């Protein structure tokens, strides 16, 4: 995003990417079938989200580039090694943070406020949504902002299982199920065509109908003639001059191990929260012995992820539907935004922050793992009886996932491991992780709510609900929303970065990823990453023009 904004502001940009070049137009398996793939496309340790998933060179493990987890902690870190990073295969859920999300501490005394408010970020949300194309609707829901008229594309109708869940949740439980906001084109947008309403978005989109930075941001930035991209360049440090200003970056060429130093007037770090923190911590100098921007020892602290709990069930009402096309955009058409803001403010819930619900299921292209699940539910039999069982069960499994908000805590952070080095000889990150009481209370509530919804419709719950909530909550990092490691703050002792995303310690170093977030609300992070990146890049461009960056 920053490269797009800076090149369109007339600046020349060198983008250094540790992964390989990646071209969605030629590399996306759009219509390939499970039967065309090894092991029917089932997930393996090489391709942890399935064979066709658009993650190259990474996943929970990147060969030769490990990370460590402190004793007693559990954390996992998903990385890709490709141009465009994880935007090639993200879930495309594109929600704005709401006004309360920027002033949580003022409202309930927990966590940190942002050094900016919703009104200040709103025009940048508008710009990003206009540029990338987002479908959704205006619902007037508290703290889930609507976009100004004319920005959002029309949402697709709910898929059959979403329609059913919406009927039951809305009419019997008072849980609103509304159109999701998704970075997928339901209408042509600029020179990009609309979605084909078929083919799995998590494989990427060869026609550019969803948002990936490789289809939406990088091509126009390249056509300005001001963007150069070097792939296979692993950045590890930002050197500074005697006055503490960055002089450029140092990196290692993956192909031959050669060390390069590139000079620049300014540096933007957007390697994802944890890697950006790592680069800063590795940038030790006489001026910054503890790492660039780390005078207060804050870099790597306040690490957050999204707490989540899921309940899966077999829903009898969805059995034996007549065959019809119901793939849609293949990801969420609906979601349930946080619906209890008033009750929460009145102190009735026992936890302070909101959650939303995501939906999964339906009559998708039969994937191996989905078929394994229904095969396990099929009653004994053979031949035609068994076929009838499979046809009955197909499309009747529903998976609801509650997504909450974590309050940053001292036990969740990353730092350089004193002992372990990666293939480049660089210190790896060591993670510490602890969920707090707020997250446990919130997820306990969500689990009960989701189970109630399924019980009420007579569904067979497939998730073991007997475990204590702390045991079923996933380790940190699992939702892949890491944030907060270099948070923005008005004053340097509250966070390493200022309200523009610029290091307090070094006026020409900016951060443009979720490391910036002082809080990580239940809304997914990527839209806010892009809004902040664009706003920060604009600030940088203006500063460079004035000569004061």
């Amino acid at each position: 995003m920053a490269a797009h904004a800076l090149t369109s502001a007339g600046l020349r940009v060198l983008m250094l990417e540790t992964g390989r070049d990646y071209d969605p137009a030629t590399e996306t398996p759009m219509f390939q079938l499970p039967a065309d793939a090894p092991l029917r496309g089932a997930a393996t340790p090489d391709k942890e989200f399935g064979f066709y998933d658009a993650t190259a060179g990474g996943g929970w493990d990147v060969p030769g580039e490990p990370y460590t987890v402190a004793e007693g902690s559990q954390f996992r870190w998903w990385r890709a090694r490709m141009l465009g990073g994880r935007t090639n295969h993200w879930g495309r859920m594109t929600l704005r943070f709401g006004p309360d999300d920027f002033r949580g501490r003022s409202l309930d005394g927990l966590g940190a406020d942002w050094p900016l408010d919703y009104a200040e970020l709103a025009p940048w949300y508008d710009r990003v949504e206009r540029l990338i194309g987002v479908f959704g609707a205006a619902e007037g829901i508290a703290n889930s902002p609507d976009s100004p008229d004319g920005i959002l594309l029309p949402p697709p109708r709910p898929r059959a299982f979403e329609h059913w869940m919406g009927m039951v949740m809305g009419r019997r439980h008072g849980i609103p199920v509304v159109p999701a906001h998704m970075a997928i084109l339901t209408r042509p947008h600029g020179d990009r065509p609309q979605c084909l309403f078929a083919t799995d978005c998590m494989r990427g989109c060869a026609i550019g109908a969803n948002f990936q930075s490789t289809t939406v941001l990088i091509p126009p930035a390249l056509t300005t003639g001001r963007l150069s991209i070097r792939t296979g360049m692993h950045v590890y440090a930002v050197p500074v001059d005697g006055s503490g200003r960055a002089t450029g970056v140092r990196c290692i060429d993956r192909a031959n191990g050669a060390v390069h130093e590139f000079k620049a007037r300014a540096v933007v770090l957007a390697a994802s929260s944890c890697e950006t923190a790592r680069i800063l911590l590795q940038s030790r100098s006489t001026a910054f012995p503890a790492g660039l921007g780390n005078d207060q020892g804050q870099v790597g602290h306040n690490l957050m992820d999204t707490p989540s709990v899921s309940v899966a069930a077999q829903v009898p009402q969805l059995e034996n539907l007549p065959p019809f096309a119901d793939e849609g955009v293949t990801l969420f058409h609906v979601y349930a935004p946080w619906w209890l803001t008033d009750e929460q403010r009145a102190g009735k819930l026992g936890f302070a922050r909101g959650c939303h619900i995501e939906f999964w299921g339906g009559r998708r292209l039969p994937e191996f793992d989905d078929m394994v699940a229904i095969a396990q539910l099929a009653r004994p039999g053979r031949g035609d009886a068994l076929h009838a069982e499979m046809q009955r069960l197909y499309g009747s499994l529903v998976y609801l996932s509650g997504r909450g908000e974590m309050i940053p805590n001292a036990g969740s952070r990353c730092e350089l491991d004193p002992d372990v080095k990666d293939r480049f000889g660089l210190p790896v990150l060591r993670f510490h992780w602890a969920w707090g009481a707020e997250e446990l209370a919130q997820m306990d509530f969500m689990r009960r709510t989701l189970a109630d919804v399924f019980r009420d419709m007579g569904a067979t719950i497939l998730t073991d609900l007997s475990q204590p909530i702390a045991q079923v909550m996933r380790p940190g990092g699992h939702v892949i929303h890491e944030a907060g490691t270099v948070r923005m703050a008005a004053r340097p002792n509250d966070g390493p970065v200022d309200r523009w995303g610029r290091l307090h310690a070094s006026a020409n170093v900016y951060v443009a990823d979720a490391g910036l977030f002082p809080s990580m609300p239940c809304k997914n992070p990527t839209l806010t990453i892009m809004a902040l990146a664009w706003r920060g890049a604009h600030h940088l461009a203006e500063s460079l023009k004035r000569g004061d960056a």
Partner: protein
Amino acid sequence: MPDRRTLLGWTAAVAGMLGVGSGLRAYLGTGATGPGTGNAGYGKDPALVEPQPSSWPRILNDRQRDWLTSLLDSLLPRSGTLPSASEAGLVAFFDEWLSAPYPDQLADRALILPFLDGHADPVAENRLRTLALAAWYTTPAGITAIGFVGNEAQPDFAPLPIAVLDHLERAFALLPEKQP
């Protein structure tokens, strides 16, 4: 009640797709392929548009393949236009699956090979049935037979068929009075 493998299969797969992780399928990756297995998998960056057939050596012998063929075809015989399990390529699928160097497949190998060698084992038999169904329903014939319509570009996303809406409204009307 469904058994625990239901959780292992579906919720883990979905959790992965959604980036919510599962905690059930612990793919931490160390030692999954390479040393100890004598084989390599397809790696972290395989060609996706034209997938290559997996390269690990196949381990089933003729006797095991014959026995597998008769087991599978008695489970899923040819029926009308629907191919039998062996006609649908399931023997080759099992040979690939049971020979693969990944943890799930190695576990299946340890479970199912003795069964193919004649040791009765209901757990192995059940797992074989599950894998066979999943393999059959991911063939082109199976995808159609299960009632899937799609994987073809649509000009727009058509409204829900009236029959489906009616079905769901009727089902809703049948729900018992909600317990407070």
